[in-house]
């Protein structure tokens, strides 16, 4: 009888140990990264009272039999919290995961050793119960390596490729026939504003935004500047271009010089007309405000990405009675330009400006291609919402940024 009771106790104890032991443990290289990281996954424990209080630690060793060293990871999460890696399946709600990129240095404990690429590591997940008991899992192995592709960005790549193709085809078509563009009020007013400066014999001030040459808004602003410079050269009106970035200034100098050359007025171009004001935001604003009240330009054109200085500039421009045309894709500053400027190019209108002004087939085709892209996204959006309402979220998942 005693022997039987001992056996029963041992079986029950073993069953309990197995019940608490992390199961389904797997370790593998973390996908879509630059290496040095291992993802460990294991089953969510079977539901019982206090299951939420189980804490997990992960230990790593360089040999299957140990010794194992502690690691630091943020928290064990359900796989469903990272759909970019684990997808949207039902099983993602039943499995936990954690990422390990370093472990404690056994020779100097506060220090940590980074996981190396191409080296095999042995991993155990240890479950710590509120009672203080700990249950290690079976040992699994993994090797970290660099991934050439980040598969979570596939949708980004596909959309980028399709849109690029649409734009290229549209450019090709634009070279064959003329394409229609609707009227953009702010740009229609550009000639009128430059003409006013000519009549008044006052300069035109073109102020760039604060971002570098790499941003779309600055590139668009430079395109608008090209047209403005062309017109001021034709009208023989003084143009002053204020910059806060040396690279933008150099590009602007080239653009203005070329425009004056194209207009047949290279003699009218002065290098000093495109100048550096200040690299700091508010010193740029203070200096421009001073320039506005002293030089009293008849026309202020502010193009690019602006920050808090937008209202300071536009308000001063309005106070001197200048015609003001602003264009920005900074949605936080658009309200200020709308309230203080005569015309405002909102967001994408700034990008469309260069195509609208130059009527170049390349730019027109690009604009047409963007319209087709927008129409496609609009259809996707309406279709996606309808499908999601019917309980099918596939389209929503395809168009998710990871």
């Amino acid at each position, binding site marked *: 009888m005693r022997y039987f009771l001992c056996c029963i106790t041992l079986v029950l104890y073993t069953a309990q140990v197995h019940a608490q032991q992390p199961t389904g443990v797997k370790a593998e290289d973390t996908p879509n990264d630059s290496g040095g990281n291992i993802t460990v996954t294991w089953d969510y424990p079977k539901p019982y009272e206090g299951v939420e209080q189980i804490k997990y630690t992960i230990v790593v060793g360089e040999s299957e039999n140990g010794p194992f060293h502690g690691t630091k990871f943020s928290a064990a999460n359900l796989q469903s919290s990272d759909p970019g890696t684990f997808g949207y399946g039902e099983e993602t709600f039943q499995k936990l995961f954690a990422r390990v990129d370093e472990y404690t240095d056994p020779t100097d404990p506060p220090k940590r050793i980074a996981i190396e690429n191409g080296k095999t590591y042995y991993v155990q997940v240890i479950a710590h119960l509120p009672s203080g008991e700990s249950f290690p899992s079976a040992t699994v192995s993994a090797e970290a390596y660099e991934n050439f592709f980040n598969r979570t960005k596939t949708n980004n790549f596909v959309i980028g490729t399709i849109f690029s193709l649409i734009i290229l085809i549209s450019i090709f078509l634009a070279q064959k026939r003329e394409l229609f563009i609707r009227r953009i009020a702010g740009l229609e007013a550009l000639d009128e504003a430059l003409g006013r400066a000519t009549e008044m014999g006052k300069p035109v001030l073109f102020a760039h935004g604060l971002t570098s040459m790499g941003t779309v808004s600055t590139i668009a602003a430079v395109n608008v500047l090209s047209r403005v410079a062309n017109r001021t050269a034709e009208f023989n009106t003084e143009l002053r271009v204020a910059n806060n970035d040396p690279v933008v200034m150099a590009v602007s100098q080239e653009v203005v010089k070329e425009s004056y050359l194209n207009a047949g007025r290279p003699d009218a171009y002065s290098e000093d007309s495109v100048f550096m004001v200040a690299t700091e935001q508010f010193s740029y604003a203070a200096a421009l405000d001073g320039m506005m*009240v002293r030089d009293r330009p008849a026309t202020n054109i502010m193009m690019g990405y602006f920050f808090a200085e937008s209202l300071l500039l536009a308000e001063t421009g309005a106070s001197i009675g200048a015609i003001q045309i602003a264009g920005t894709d900074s949605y936080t500053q658009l309200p200020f330009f709308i309230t203080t400027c005569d015309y405002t190019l909102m967001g994408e209108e700034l990008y469309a400006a260069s195509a609208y002004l130059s009527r170049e087939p390349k730019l027109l085709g690009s604009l047409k291609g963007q319209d087709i892209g927008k129409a496609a996204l609009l259809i996707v959006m309406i279709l996606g919402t309808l499908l999601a309402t019917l309980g099918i979220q596939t389209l929503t998942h395809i168009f998710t940024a990871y």
Partner: protein
Amino acid sequence: MSRDHIIFIVFLFIFATINIYLFGSGNLSADWTGFGTFIAAGITLSLYSFLYKDNPLFKFAENLYVGVAAAYTLNQIWYTVLLADVVNPLSELEENLSNLWLIVPTLLGLFMLTQLSSAKFSWLSRIAFAFVVGLGAGLAIPRTIAANVLAQLEPTMQPIAATWVGLDLFIILVGVVTVLVYFFYSVEHTGPVGVASKIGIWFLMISFGASFGYTIMARLSLLIGRVGFLLEDWLVLPLPLF
């Protein structure tokens, strides 16, 4: 003497008197901290004087600001970029030959300076500019798709139910669709497209109004901070005054 001159002289007199009193009474300590507060108050008031009209004090503060900003930027670029990323690594080539690759960005940077030279060499700057613009565009495209396309689509394509949340989602969907229609350039905004784009403009203006109010609140808090500095740190008045 014009009215502006009188105002200018009176302002300077009052400012000087207040500071003499503050230093004399010990409210402003006669050390660098007190001197810093005095200068900061003077520059703050000089910049605010622009609200009256352009004047020599504002011009002084403006030029000082531009000069200090330029000097600060040069300092930052020298210590954090040129010295840390170029001069020091290149001077340690004997110990670390892999730093040799730094010559490429350094050359590109030097090419930019050829803008300042004659036309014989200035074409070199175009290589550097082409690199900067190309790199910028290359980095911007995937980021733009992620932030401006995908990150907007996913929260819009949600199931719409007959609840308040569903109504929210529906309004967002209508807003996104109509605003997108407004930004169509290859169709005339007449008929149904015109109606949709008008609704889109309403959505834009409502959001701009909200953004305007929100930003003005933030600006007011900046003003309060500055006025607080003048009253509490400079004039040493106990706040709140009332």
